[in-house]
């Protein structure tokens, strides 16, 4: 019997080694180990052996069966690997260095900067409001303390419409409406497109974006304004900035300031950007004029507040190093596609 099993083993080992495909291996497996296989037959006929021999034979056969199963499994693994390798070899080699067609479009630089700034203000509790582009003379001028024939109207060349309305010259045009809508206390920013009737050059556009903000509460002071602007601007520029106030005349604030920040390029040492001054004029601001509060329906004895304006177009130019303001409205995809989405 031993001899027989040994022969079977040798035969099977040869057979296994000759198999080249998984399918034939499976077939072989069922031939050898299946119901009709030699080994199964031996087990079936176990009764024909001497009783004392039976357990020994049974064990030997089963051992052999397991051995063969293992061999087949091993071989199967080998064949699988061979097949995988073959497939890998025949697989098309892709050139990862080939240029891929650009699928992403682009957002306008103003959109990107505006979203960043809106996000900063939202975390500080400011509502973001949307203004109109066509405004009434009242909202754009009277309600922000610029009466008719006031020389301050010269500061902004206005596009008048034939119906007596105008294209808003400043985001401040929304102040009155927002005060009336929310009352005090109030924290809001309002970005928007503004217009000035002037000739274009690299630093003048008739269409540009501003972002204006207001904060109204009890006992708001100049010291609060300085603190707020310093923190917010440092956040916007992601840099610890110093700020300074200079007197500035804007009819809707009293006192009114021009706010300078320490130059973020040279840290205030003096460079080309800040014209050696160390400071960059960034944002007009001030305590809201009592008349403006009153016209907005807010008690100016009880409440005070500050307002500030940021040039979104200017901030976008600073962020991306754009030197010609006109590019922002050019619609030139050679410029805009460079900006992408971030």
């Amino acid at each position: 019997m031993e001899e027989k099993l040994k022969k079977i083993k040798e035969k099977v080992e040869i057979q296994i080694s000759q198999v080249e495909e998984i399918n034939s291996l499976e077939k072989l497996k069922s031939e050898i180990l299946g119901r009709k296989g030699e080994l199964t037959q031996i087990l079936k006929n176990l009764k024909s052996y001497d009783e004392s021999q039976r357990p020994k034979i049974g064990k030997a056969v089963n051992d052999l069966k397991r051995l063969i199963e293992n061999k087949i499994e091993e071989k199967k693994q080998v064949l699988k690997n061979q097949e995988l390798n073959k497939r890998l070899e025949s697989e098309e080699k892709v050139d990862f260095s080939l240029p891929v067609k650009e699928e992403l479009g682009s957002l306008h630089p103003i959109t990107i900067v505006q979203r960043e700034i809106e996000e900063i203000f939202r975390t500080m509790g400011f509502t973001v409001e949307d203004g109109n582009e066509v405004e009434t003379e009242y909202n754009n001028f009277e309600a922000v303390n610029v009466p008719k024939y006031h020389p301050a109207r010269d500061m902004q060349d206005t596009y008048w419409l034939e119906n007596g309305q105008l294209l808003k010259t400043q985001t401040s045009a929304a102040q009155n409406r927002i005060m009336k809508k929310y009352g005090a206390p109030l924290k809001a920013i309002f970005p928007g497109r503004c217009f000035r009737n002037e000739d274009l050059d690299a630093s003048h556009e008739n269409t540009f974006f501003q972002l204006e903000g207001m904060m109204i509460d009890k006992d708001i002071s100049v010291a609060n304004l300085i603190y707020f602007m310093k923190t917010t601007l440092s956040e916007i520029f992601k840099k610890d900035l110093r700020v300074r106030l200079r007197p500035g005349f804007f009819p809707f604030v009293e006192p009114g300031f021009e706010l300078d920040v320490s130059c973020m390029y040279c840290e205030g040492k003096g460079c080309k950007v800040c014209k050696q001054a160390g400071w960059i004029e960034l944002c007009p601001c001030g305590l809201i004029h009592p008349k403006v509060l009153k016209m907005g329906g807010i008690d100016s004895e009880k409440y005070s507040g500050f307002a500030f304006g940021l040039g979104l177009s200017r901030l976008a130019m600073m962020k991306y190093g754009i030197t010609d303001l006109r590019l922002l409205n050019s619609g030139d995809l050679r410029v805009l596609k460079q900006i992408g989405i971030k």
Partner: protein
Amino acid sequence: MYISMNWIKDFVDLNGIDLEELINRFTLSTAEVEGIIKHGENIGGIITAKILKIEKHPGSDKLRIIKVDTGNETITCLCGAKNIQVGDIVPFAKIGSIVDGRKIEKVEMAGQVSNGMCLSEKELGISEDNSGVMILDENTEVGIDIKKLLDIDDIIFEVDNKSLTNRPDLWGHYGIAREIAAITGRKLKKLEIEELENYNNLKDVNVKVEDTEKCYRYSSIEIENIKNNKLDINKRIRLYYCGMRSISLLVDLTNYIMLELGQPMHAYDKSLVNNIKVKSTDKDIQFKTLDGNLRNINKGTLMIWDNDTPISIAGIMGGENSEITEKTISLLLESANFDSVCIRKSALDLKLRTDASAHYEKSLDPFLTDIAIKRYIKLLEENDKEIRIVSNLTDIYAKKYPEIEIQITKEYINSRIGIELSENRIIEILKSLEFGVEQNGKILTIKVPSFRATKDVSMKADLVEEIARIYGYDNIKPQTKEQSLKIVEVEEDKKVENTIKDLLAIKYGASEVHTYVWYDKKRNKELGIEVNEDNIKLANSLNANFNVLRESMIPSLLYTLNENIKYYSDVNIFESGRIFKYPKKGENCVEVKSLGVILCSKNKSSKELIYKGIEIINSIMELNKNIKVRMKDIKNIKYNWISPVNSAEIIYNNDSLGYISELNINIKDNINNKTNIVVIEINLDKLNAIKVINKKYEEFSKYQPVEIDISVLMDKEEKYSSLEKCIDEVKLKDLLKYELVDIFEDDKKLQNKKSITIRFTLLSKDHTLSSEEINNDLQVLIEKFEENNYYVKK
């Protein structure tokens, strides 16, 4: 406005103060200084010299050989100017001296050597006069440094006019000096004037102010026996450095006073005027101003008249008929105060802004008019000793500003600034600015000086500014403000806009652009775009091409496309902006938020682009509002860029949210006939108004769905939506969904028909559908199709 430091020093002692540092402090406390010009730096070593001899140049007709005496030597030089004579004293640049930044060297001209040069006023940098050598006063000492004689050295700083808009008191040197005195803590000197009491007994000037609403004050005086015609040189240098052209003594002095006190004056030739009247014209007239222009003056403009002849536009410009000339020997001097709004309005109407009108429109201090005359006489006497005053200072003070008193407390000031100033310091600051202060317990009663009371300072907030700026904004320590931190959610409309922009840029590879809110007529013409020229117009556009506001986003996006198409084979752009319409012509305009999208490709077919466009529209609707819209043929085509063949309205709840269209081929061919272009416009206001449909989870049915394909034959022209309509109408109870599987067209087999295969999925929630039920459903569907003449393939 240019401010001369020499002039300021007339009124404030600035010894020991660094001038540049002072200018910096002025910027931080008062108004922005835009630039500093240092005059005299390019001139050095110039001395006075006497002409001893003038000889012909043997080799040149233009040049002469001059011998000058410089006090200790005689120098020979060459000179081209013809105005010098022996004995004249002139500024002389020796070898080694500096003129206009260049060193004077020995030169040879036409064989003769020149050891220096005689200088003109222009070469000295003190005027534009280059007509000849400057001749100095005959009594001038020879051999002294010219800078001892002439105030060539001066620091001029330019103050930004805009930052002075609200400060009428700063429109002259004396006011600036007052400010500098307050900043530096020094004393302001009194203005030297000629008190004119001695002339009180003389006759009045013949003046009548008829329009007392517009003319607040009119002061005048008459002077005779004018002999001199030139203002002294150092005052002329100041005028020149401050940007004024010298004309004649009488006129220069009016300008000098304006620059010094901020009070405009006008000098009339007395021999040409008799009977002054100040009144508005009651009809439109024509009037020739002294610049020689004939101007149309509107009814209502305030004028100065001699009897019934206009002689001046009040506060703006005098007339040619009464102007000072070389022959003038007597003058009538006007120093008046006019209503600021009236002057500004007239100047705007006339499109004539003069230095005088720019001053008046700031609301000048009426107290200045007589002071200005007294100062004028003082300076005139210094320049022309023999003048004779022939009238009293006639003063008509028709309308006075109310005196302003403001009550304020230390606490109010400190709380608004955020500092702790003592009462004493507050009072000290206010007094340095010439405010009157009375203390009564905690309350300070502040009297506003006349020069700040015309409109500038009227309330507590104004005083807060005065104190804070002199205290120094730099000295205020930043302070936080306690506040509740509540993060604000993004507003729904903003979210929609952000989502749309992201979707288009990120998923559809489109680029956001910004365009102008007006049409470009020239480009409309080039591209064949027709717009409603009757839409809202700009009344004062600088360019007539751009005066109609856009009613649609598409034209400006087409301009942008047209510019970009030469660089790209595919251009996908969009803008979320505003469009403008009249509800009725002349009424307030309606502003609508609108999204415009343009898809353009040289490789994709029009059909592909349309389907991509519909996909975009569906995504926008689903992403933002969870809604489904339908496409419907456009009944009234409003714009000529919409294709009459391939275009559809976007319909939701029977309302049109916008449209999608192939670009009309006429326009497309003008842009590029080899590309395909699709335009989309969506009314974002309408979209924003739609409520979000909230989705609810529906449980799956436990039973097996049944899928059945039905093929329908229909005319090629016919729309898929007609089949949808049929399906919707039969309202099969068990219909879970249906979808388009295939469209088959074959000209030979089907001719002008197409076969559309739709897969219907049937499912019941509570039982397995029996084949009977299924057949029944199918039968209903088929009947409905056939009823509408759609043949169903069995």
